[in-house]
């Protein structure tokens, strides 16, 4: 099953090209061009990984991250940042972002980070699921 990735950046050309490249690497990519769109989409669909640009007009990547983390705390978020906004990216890490990458990001590196983030999320969810199953077995006495 392909990893579902939400890609949010206000640079349409960049997002589209990157999305195509990620899709060529067997990822299912949904693109949005604003922070608002990212929040809306993240609330609607359960993505494997979300990639957010830090610097977006109106709702910034950091604000979007806060809301997404509130709605979907287990979804890993990777921040994309320009050099001058490293501090913001670090702030994002403190707010629960999985990692951050400097623009223009190397695609293979990004794919690696996405896979890593998804694997961790998957393992985490697996552990939760296992724990829940064990809990059901224990409570129902199967």
């Amino acid at each position, binding site marked *: 099953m392909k990893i579902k990735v939400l890609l949010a950046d206000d640079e349409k050309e960049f997002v589209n*090209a990157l999305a195509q490249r990620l899709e060529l690497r067997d990822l299912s990519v949904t693109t949005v061009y604003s922070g608002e769109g990212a929040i809306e989409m993240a609330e609607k669909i359960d993505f494997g990984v979300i990639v957010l640009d830090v610097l977006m007009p109106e709702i910034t990547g950091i604000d979007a991250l806060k809301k997404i983390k509130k709605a979907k705390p287990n979804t890993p978020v990777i921040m994309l940042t320009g050099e001058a906004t490293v501090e913001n990216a670090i702030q994002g890490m403190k707010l629960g972002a999985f990692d951050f990458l400097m623009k223009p990001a190397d695609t293979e590196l990004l794919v690696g980070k996405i896979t890593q983030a998804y694997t961790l999320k998957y393992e985490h969810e697996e552990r939760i699921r296992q724990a829940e199953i064990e809990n059901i077995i224990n409570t129902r006495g199967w």
Partner: protein
Amino acid sequence: MYKKIINNLFLLEGEPQNRYKALKRNIIIIMVLITTLPLATMIIINYFQYRSHLRSQIIAPLYAMAEKTKHSFELFLDQRLAIIRFVSTTYNFEDLSNEKDIEKILLSLKKEWSGFVDIGLINKDGELVSYAGPYSLLGKNYSEQISFQETQIKGKYISNVFLGHRKSPHIVIAVQHITDKGQTWILRATIDTDFFDNLISSMGLPRQTDAFLISKDGFLQTDSLYYGNTLEKCPLPLPKIQFRSTSFEETDDKNRDIILVSSPFSIADYILVIAQPQSVALKSWYAFRTDMMIIFLVSLVIIVFSIIKMTDVLIKRIKTSDEHREKVLVELQHAQKLSSIGRLATGVAHEINNPLAIINQKAGLMNDLVERTKDFDKKPKFVDLTNAILNSVERCKKITHRLLCFSKRIDVKIEPVNMNHIIHEALEFLEKEILYRKMDINLNLSESLVSVKSDHGQIQQILLNLLTNAFAAIEDLGRVEIETENGKDGGIKVKITDNGCGIPKDVIKNIFDPFFSTKKENGTGLGLSITYGIIKKLGGKISVDSNPGEGSVFTFELPEKPNDMETING
């Protein structure tokens, strides 16, 4: 107005060298005036006060002497007058008319009192009716003479000195007698003036000092040492005040400056005059004046010398301070230039980064697509072209990263660092290039190098930049020497010397400016500018010395710890 004068005096414009010279000259003139004017004023006031005081001190004894001598004269004359008056009242006209009696009286007078020459009796008509003395004056009529008329009016008379028949100076004393019955007659005596000379010679006059009697019409009544003999006209002017003792200064006929003390008689028309040359009278004053002038001149020389020396030191300090200020201003301008260029660079880099990311992704996508497509004609060429685009993007990315690195605020981590250790680390980064180009790296690292508080990563960046530049400057097989030593005040000094192409003089002055590069397409022109910025931030300094064709020496110093940790961390 006042401010304008001060500005003109001290804030001078023009060539620096001339400005300092003019400033030095103005300060010296003003200081000399300020210090010497009060001194000169004091000296002048003291001069006149002391001269006046000393004059009165010098003249006072002359006054006393004149007064005392005058009293002796007056006493002499008064006594003689009293004797004649006594004779006139003791004897009557008939007694005195008797030749024998008057002879007897003259003998007695001569015996008891000095100076008497003759004596005679004059009746109311002015006729000499009786006479005792060496001359035959009997029967002579005096009615037309001043002595007779004066005696008739005042009752007594003392004449000025005159030469008698014997051609010796003498005076006449006469008194009028009026009997109870109204009979009047005059007793007249002639007295020689030897006593006058005796009295003057007994005054004990100081050297070159003259004393003499003059009549109120200016004729000498006694001989003078310098101004003539008895009855000659005195060449000195008469005192203006003739009723009390006075002193005045004159230049005599021998062109000598003299002090004159005059003391007029009350009972006769004589004036006693003491004349003393000023060179004698004011000898102590002249000595004092010379001393005072010497002290003044010596003080003046000391003051002027001190002022010149002090001004010299002051001007040198001002000059050094000005130079230092100018240097700081240049550094400040440089720092401001770096800062504004830094801000500009951030903006440019950021704006470029976005399209760069798009190009990167688009070219990457092209590559991805081509890789996933069957082979076609020109496929390798196509891949090469997209790779070239990606390489160029990578190059641009490096430039924008360095631009951002140049301008961005970095959190400096200050910790004790070992410079020798960082040098080894930096060389490890460049190991491959060193091996490949067979460069000779000569390390001369001080074993006793102190550890300083600084930023490890930033120092690494400095060394990498400087070494990269040195490597770029030398040919293969070239030599680079790295030297460390302890600096002043607990800091360290690092010297990187290469035997490369060197830097021309016109390039050196811009070498730390951003975007200044001699490597053309291979350099961003930011390396040394970043290095400069980091070293400044860490409180150090960097200098470069180069001879074209021989090589360059980059020396940087770091302090024991950065001056302002707050600024650095801020």
